[in-house]
């Protein structure tokens, strides 16, 4: 009942926040319900049994039996950390946004609706339900960008909506095809994810259909992640979105794509074809290489962070490809657990980064790096938190990002050596844009034109400090989380043909 309870609390909270009269009521509702959801997800994490896989907290009710649609939810080691991540990020966002003044009731209602639909995506075990949540995510984000967004919000909001919606409907076609062929072969027409995925490899599909289905789903996920060259909606959306919108967008929404790779594409990889492994790896590689160089050129710190997200998400594609490619089991599992860890780690780290960009904009009135300078002098607390975040994003040892990226690179090398070596070329650029941005914005002489800048408010400090603490704690001692992912990856590897798919 845990899962339905979380969903019910968040939906009720969203409605209550929308109907509340004052800003104080709305934000109180948001904090209470998002923290209640967080509490329940922590309880779920504690009570999680790795051996049970998807049977953890499973719930099943008939919904539309004629077509084979059910309310079916449950979590395993891939989705549970994602649920936890969503709950953490949303709960801290509710604190971070405590000072929101513009249409506060709608703002917090959308925040909770976002939380609701994101958690829904990760727990769904029925394609219909999954798709509903997957699409529902777009609506609060569309409004967040549109109502609280910057000057070019019209363009960005609609671009975000159309681009990701097109990707979703293409994915839906793939889902239809799985449904149809499963029903035709077995006589059971169902949208149940567990049933469809377990039977998928035995379905007598022609190679056209097998590849079409895979490509349709892959397209849906790559756009969401996003992988270069399908990334163009992301910088626009980020630049215009309000800070909380950006945090949720980069912190959790992008993870839907990475999650999709694990949940759907690994069990569905066409066994005979190595083409897709290289495709996924190359999409990852291009993102890893392109994003830092693009980030170097950005004058706007928020756009810079947006590009950094694209690069970090590339590592997930790389890890997934390395997991499927032929090789010894140990490094493959290592790469996959690293990729899952990256999903979580990047969600937390990028929250600090976008939180910093929001604070800079809010306190100084600009996001252009050139116009900043010497902020450490006026905002010492902020400077410490932000710089820690930037170091974590750079992959500094002792922090979460390092654990993730190290595991991915080390685990991928035996299977895909050349791609890993190529990916390593990005490291100086990654370090470069992070350090350069920090240097220009935070150090040097204070830019007097900024006037009298104040340091963090208590709510900003609380949220940022909590994120930074998590980065350090799970960077120094990743075991509680890593263990869950590792055991899940070890279970997942049995789905693939033994020894992996020979490239």
């Amino acid at each position: 009942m845990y899962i339905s309870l979380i969903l019910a609390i968040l939906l009720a909270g969203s409605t209550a926040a929308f109907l509340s009269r004052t800003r104080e009521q709305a934000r109180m509702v948001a904090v209470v319900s998002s923290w209640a959801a967080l509490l329940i997800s922590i309880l779920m994490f504690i009570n999680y049994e790795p051996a049970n896989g998807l049977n953890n907290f499973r719930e099943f009710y008939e919904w539309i039996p004629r077509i084979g649609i059910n309310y079916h939810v449950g979590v395993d080691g891939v989705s549970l950390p994602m649920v936890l991540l969503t709950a953490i990020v949303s709960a801290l966002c509710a604190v971070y946004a405590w000072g929101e003044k513009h249409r506060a009731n709608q703002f917090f209602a959308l925040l909770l609706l976002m939380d609701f639909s994101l958690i829904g995506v990760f727990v769904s075990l029925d394609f219909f339900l999954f798709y509903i949540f997957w699409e529902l995510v777009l609506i609060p984000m569309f409004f967040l960008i549109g109502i609280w967004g910057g000057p070019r919000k019209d363009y960005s909001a609609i671009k975000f909506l159309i681009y990701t919606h097109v990707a979703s409907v293409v994915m839906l076609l793939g889902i239809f095809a799985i449904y149809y062929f499963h029903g035709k072969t077995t006589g059971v027409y169902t949208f149940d994810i567990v049933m469809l995925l377990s039977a998928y490899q035995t379905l007598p599909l022609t190679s056209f259909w097998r590849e079409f289905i895979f490509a349709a789903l892959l397209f849906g996920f790559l756009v969401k992640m996003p992988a270069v060259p399908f990334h163009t909606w992301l910088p626009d959306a980020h630049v215009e979105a309000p800070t909380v919108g950006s945090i949720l967008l980069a912190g959790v929404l992008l993870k839907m794509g990475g999650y999709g790779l694990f949940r759907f594409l690994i069990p569905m990889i066409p066994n005979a074809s190595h083409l897709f492994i290289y495709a996924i790896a190359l999409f990852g590689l291009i993102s890893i290489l392109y994003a830092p160089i693009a980030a170097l050129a950005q004058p706007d710190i928020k756009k810079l962070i947006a590009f950094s997200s694209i690069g970090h998400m590339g590592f997930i594609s790389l890890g997934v490809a390395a997991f499927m490619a032929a090789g010894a089991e140990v490094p493959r599992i290592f790469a996959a657990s690293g990729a899952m860890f990256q999903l979580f780690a990047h969600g937390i780290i990028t929250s600090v980064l976008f939180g910093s960009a929001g604070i800079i904009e809010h306190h100084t009135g600009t996001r252009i790096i050139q116009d900043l300078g010497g902020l450490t002098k006026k905002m010492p607390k902020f400077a410490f938190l932000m710089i820690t975040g930037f170091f974590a994003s750079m992959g500094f040892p002792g922090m979460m990002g390092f654990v993730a990226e190290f595991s991915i690179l080390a685990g991928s090398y035996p299977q895909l050596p050349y791609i890993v070596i190529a990916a390593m070329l990005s490291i100086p650029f990654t370090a470069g844009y992070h350090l350069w941005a920090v240097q220009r914005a935070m150090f040097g002489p204070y830019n007097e034109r900024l006037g009298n800048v104040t340091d963090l408010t208590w709510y900003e400090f609380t949220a940022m400090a909590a994120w930074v603490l998590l980065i350090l704690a799970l960077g120094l001692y990743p075991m509680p989380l890593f263990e869950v992912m590792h055991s899940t990856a070890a279970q997942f590897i049995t789905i693939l043909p033994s020894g992996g798919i020979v490239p």
Partner: protein
Amino acid sequence: MSYLLLAPELILIAVSILVLLLGLFIKEKKVLGYVSIAALLVALLLVLGSFNVKESFIGYPFYSAIVVDSFAQFFNIIFLTVALLVCIASLEYYGKNPSQDEYYFLVLIATAGMMFVAIANDLIVLFIGFELASLSTYALAGFDKHSRLGAEGALKYFVFGGLSSAILLFGISLAYGISGTVNILEMKEFLAAHAVRFESIATLAMLLILAGFGFKMALVPFHMWAPDTYEGSPSVVSALLAAGSKKMGFIAAFRVFLLALIAIKLQWYLAFAILAVITMTLGNVVAIMQNSVKRMLAYSSIAHAGYIAIAFVVIAHSQNAAQIALAGGILHALSHALATASAFIVVAAVGLIYSKSDDMENYDGLGKTAPTTALLMTVMLLSLAGIPPTFGFYTKFVLFLSAIQGGLLWLAVIAVLNSALSVYYYARVIMRMYWGKPKIEKIKEPSAYVAAMIIAVIIIVILGLYPNPISEWAYSAAEAVWR
């Protein structure tokens, strides 16, 4: 034999005449609106209460000319719901109009006409119902006598409608000439037995009948009248036209055409597919360019006619996906009727604020000036766009699923891309409502409109979240057609 099954139609006819007569004596004519609503509500409850029936009225006095089955009942639900929404909204729209008795008479009689089309098992009955609905909607379209646009729209509708009736009747006469019967089932049996002998003339007859129905369905290339008429007509009448009268074309086409098609065994699926694809693409592309919300909704209705036409394609192409395709088609007809009717009512509500103009600019800041209307409109538009968890999503889901089941991947691809394209122009209205600058202060929203919209939106949301019962009905309706 239970004549009670015809009670809904008879009630509507009786009350419509009553309304007309009372209108001569009553001063407070708004009462007649309530009388009409009550009649529609009773009729709707009767239909809902007798859903799963099959009554063919063999022998005296109807001789199988009408058949009340779940397929007809499903469409009767659509017609009655739409008429109900329209009448509720009209309490406000025509609340002060001195000739509102005639208005309600026309709405009721048009609805009765549509219902006769739904239950017709005989081409003559079908044609009479068709004409009853058409003639009364011609008058309704021009009901605002002093509006130039209204006169233009009504005239176009009348001329095109008259032409389409003539073509339809010619097609019927050819079909009668071959088979010697006007009973649809008998005609089907005859055609099945003698298909080879009469292939060319039967094809011609079906083409003409398709053209006749195509005008009502507003399929390309028979759609020309629709945008002008929807734009010019009073908004509540546009709701009735787009949501009700258009669906009448669909049930007529489903009834006559599918049976004949199976009987003649023509491989027409490609022709249908091209028609559907052109209709939805043209509707969507042109809708993007519109600056009038009414015209936008008109073109979006054309696009939706294209989606519903997918059902024809799938049925013509593959027998094993026929049931789900037909169920998807009629479900989508229902969801589109609900969302479009209520969206036109929103246009009527906005017309109150801005002297009847339906310019897109007037939606700027509606989220502030009329928050309830804006919120409800958002749900309707999301439903039209097919975004979950609305009913519109579910119906598109079933419809597109049927295309895949029928082995028509390419059609499904075009349809979903079209649907994704349509998000653009629906979202544009939402954007204007929520982040446009309001030009006026917050207003008091007229309660009759809000009531009609809330009813529609509640149905859209509930059916979106729990579509199981209605979807079972649609399946049993789809089964009834083949029997």
